């Protein structure tokens, strides 16, 4: 049996490395298209300032990109190193999008990013612009395939369990990539990246306008980012709503946790604006509600409802009882694949196999399972409500804040008065961390809300981890935390430094890299 501490440590390690990776990815997704927009203006109008913009933001892009790529390597292999049961159980489906990501997207992105940085003199204007566009599409297609894989964990369509190979197998590739969860999640995440980049560019430009440095570049960057951001934020909110609507159907436990919905409510359901959920008592304290809003948000109607935690737990208990024979039959089939009776029994109960696995945590021998153990397993099907509830609210709150911010930024910029609004410029600089925080909250809602499953309704988290020792896990966790802490310090230092130095002005001053190496003594040993 798997050691619970190892599973917990594996989860901490995965969450830490994924959240860290996800600090850098959204900026790449969005900034690449902003670079493409800037360079498009350069190529169509021929004005050198847009080339200067593309090169300056391109430099910041690369500092961020390096760490995104580096931490992405870890993610690709961590399924194998730390979630080996998960990997062999769903690799037939989950591995394919990861491989296609490499084939279709990551290769394109990485090859053309080299040309984007090194090719300014070697490529024609049009060729270079094409390279920049391909980097943008490459990085976002990358995100698409990663989210196809993630979407399968949230809503495992297009696959079925095969008792002869003891794993999930692909039945429909089309269903996998066109699942509504995948579609809305991809667009939501990709555009959240656009918003992140737009806030970043707006904030850094505001910094220059405050200091009255590089004013023409900053004004143009701010204008482009503000317009990009206002539309992107509307998109993110729209897709967030679509995602909630999908979750109401395919992941009712996640939705109940997001909304702190312990008991069923009559339609139209009120929305908990503020609440302090208690998992043990299954109720909310200090509730502030908005009438009717919840039905409107999650069912797009006023006369429909969704299930609360109490009803969901009752459902889970029934499915756990149905899952017991499925696991028992599977054990027989593992020894004897030709046993027809076991196959028939398994086929009758295969739908609830995952729930049988869930119970195994409490009752390793399922034939001896007690009603108390079934209740405990059913209680497990509810994700940590308070964490999901508040991550969701912080994300939505920050999203609305950014919408207001961008509307104002666009307005001031279109009036060409933004350089005079010092209070707004100061706010803009302080807005830079906001989208990053919102992104992390979004990840938490999606992945904490999926618990206790790695693949929703199919494979429990507690079974998915590799059978490592606690010592190995402590070692690797300390290694990751140590390395990643050093990385973030270096990255922030270099980013802030590059921002302070500012873009290379045509005169030549103010660019650290342009100082000849020879001036500092050719020998590197020192």
């Amino acid at each position, binding site marked *: 049996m798997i050691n619970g501490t190892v599973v917990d440590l594996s989860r901490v390690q995965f969450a830490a490395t994924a959240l860290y990776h996800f600090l850098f990815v959204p900026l790449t997704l969005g900034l690449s298209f902003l670079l493409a927009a800037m360079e498009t203006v350069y190529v169509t109008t021929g004005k050198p300032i847009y080339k200067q913009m593309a090169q300056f933001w391109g430099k910041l892009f690369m500092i961020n990109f390096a760490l995104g790529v580096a931490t992405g390597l870890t993610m690709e292999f961590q*399924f194998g190193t730390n979630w080996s049961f998960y990997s062999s159980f769903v690799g037939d489906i989950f591995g394919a999008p990861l491989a296609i990501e490499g084939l279709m997207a990551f290769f394109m992105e990485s090859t053309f990013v080299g040309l984007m940085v090194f090719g300014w003199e070697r490529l024609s204007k049009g060729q270079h612009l094409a390279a920049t566009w391909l980097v943008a599409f490459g990085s976002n297609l990358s995100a698409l395939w990663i989210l196809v894989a993630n979407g399968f964990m949230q809503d495992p369509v297009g696959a079925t369990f095969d008792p002869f190979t003891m794993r999930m197998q692909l039945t429909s590739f089309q269903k996998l990539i066109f699942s509504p969860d995948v579609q809305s999640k991809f667009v939501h995440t990709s555009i959240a990246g656009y918003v992140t980049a737009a806030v970043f560019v707006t904030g850094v430009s505001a910094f220059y306008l405050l200091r009255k440095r590089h004013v023409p570049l900053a004004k143009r960057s701010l204008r482009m980012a503000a317009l990009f951001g206002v539309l992107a934020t509307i998109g993110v909110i729209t897709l967030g709503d679509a995602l909630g609507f999908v979750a109401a159907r395919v992941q009712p436990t996640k939705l109940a946790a997001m909304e702190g919905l312990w008991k069923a409510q009559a339609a139209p359901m009120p929305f908990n604006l503020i609440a302090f959920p208690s998992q043990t008592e299954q109720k909310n304290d200090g509730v502030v509600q908005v009438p009717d809003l919840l039905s409107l948000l999650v069912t797009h109607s006023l006369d429909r409802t969704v299930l609360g935690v109490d009803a969901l737990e009752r459902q889970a208990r029934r499915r756990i009882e149905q899952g017991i024979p499925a696991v028992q039959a599977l054990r027989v089939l593992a020894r004897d694949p030709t046993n027809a009776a076991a196959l028939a029994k398994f086929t009758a109960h295969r739908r609830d196999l995952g729930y049988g696995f869930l119970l195994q945590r409490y009752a390793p021998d399922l034939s001896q399972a007690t009603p108390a153990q079934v209740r405990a397993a059913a209680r497990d099907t509810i994700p940590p409500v308070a964490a999901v509830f508040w991550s969701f609210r912080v994300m939505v709150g920050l999203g609305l804040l950014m919408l207001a911010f961008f509307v104002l930024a666009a307005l001031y910029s279109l009036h060409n008065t933004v350089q005079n609004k010092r209070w707004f410029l100061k706010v803009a600089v302080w807005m830079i961390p906001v989208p990053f925080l919102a992104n992390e909250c979004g990840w938490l809602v999606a992945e904490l809300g999926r618990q206790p499953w790695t693949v929703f309704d199919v494979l429990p988290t507690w079974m998915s981890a590799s059978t490592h020792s606690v010592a190995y896990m402590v070692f690797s966790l300390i290694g990751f935390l140590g390395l990643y802490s050093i990385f973030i310090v270096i990255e922030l230092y270099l980013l802030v430094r590059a921002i302070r130095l500012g873009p290379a002005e045509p005169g030549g001053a103010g660019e650290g890299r342009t100082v000849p190496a020879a001036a500092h003594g050719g020998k590197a040993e020192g």
Partner: protein
Amino acid sequence: MGLYATLQVIWWLLLGVLLMALAVMVGMDMGVGAILRYVGRTDLERRVALNIIGPHWDGNQVWFVLGGGAIFAAFPLLYATAFSGFYVVMLLLLWTMILRPLGFEYRSQIERPAWRNTWDWVLFVSGAVPMIVFGAAFGNLLRGVPFHFEWDMTSFYTGSFLGLLNPFALLTGVLALSLAAMMGALMVMNGAEGALFQRARGVVQVTAGVAIALFAVGGLWVHAMPGYRLIGGPGPGVPQTPLQQSVVTVPGAWLTNFGAYPLLWLAPLVGFGGMIGAWLAARADRSHLGWWLGALAWSGVIATAGAALFPFMLPSSTDPSMSLTVWNASSSKDTLLWMAGFAAVFVPLILWYTSWAFWVMRGKVSAEKIARGDEHAY
């Protein structure tokens, strides 16, 4: 042979091609990192060396990502079992590999010698360690690895970290490192002039010599080593788990395939020929030719290991019958078919734009331009 078995073999071959591409392209970049402090004596020389692979290392690195993805998609049980079993070694690989992009991107951001020296050493470690691990992995595949499965395919690795660093694995590890350093040096010769070119030329000759010797010793070692033989099981193209076959270990069994198909001896021959050719080409200052011959050498070496192992992918030393083979570790027919379709479209496309990128950035890297402060150079 049915469609499923054909797909399994195709994906085994494709995986081999991916590993070759990984070894050639990523190995070359890592080789440059490993020899950077030797071939480049001044900061400017080192920057020239880095800028030779500067536009390409990022794209090349994707072969590594793609290798991982392809194993996951086509042989998920291998991906799960090998990477969790090799945990500490995998961490070494990952930790050094995630340092590499930072070494490239961050080294030139700041002028201070201490900063640059630190990143030089980072590039050295992140070049040498992953290549040793990559080579050692093959060594351990040939020796067998201690693991077994429970009824539900939960895998248990029962060896220690040090067991993976046995003498044979270290030999294959150093073989991989010397081939990588050879390719890196040939690439430096392609793009450099003067003293840098000359020192790289020396590196090629030394590393090629070491590689030839190690490949020969490794071959003799395998000859005497216990190999694995599949004596019963559901066979190719049948959905199965590793609990349904029987495997025995027999000394010298890794040469069985070569005995049955003498044509396979071409693989080690190409390996030796490529190494010798690369050595001669470097002596004649014909580094482009040498690079291609070096790539051929890599392909020969990997093909030799693959030919010896087939159909095994990860033999179990503690319970040989639970060894992973092409037949029991692969994905389902549908997945293999879909993936084959994607590979058929995108692999040629990748080869096309990668060669275009190399063609665009062809020629010598100008030390003058870098010294002048070319904005876009590392």
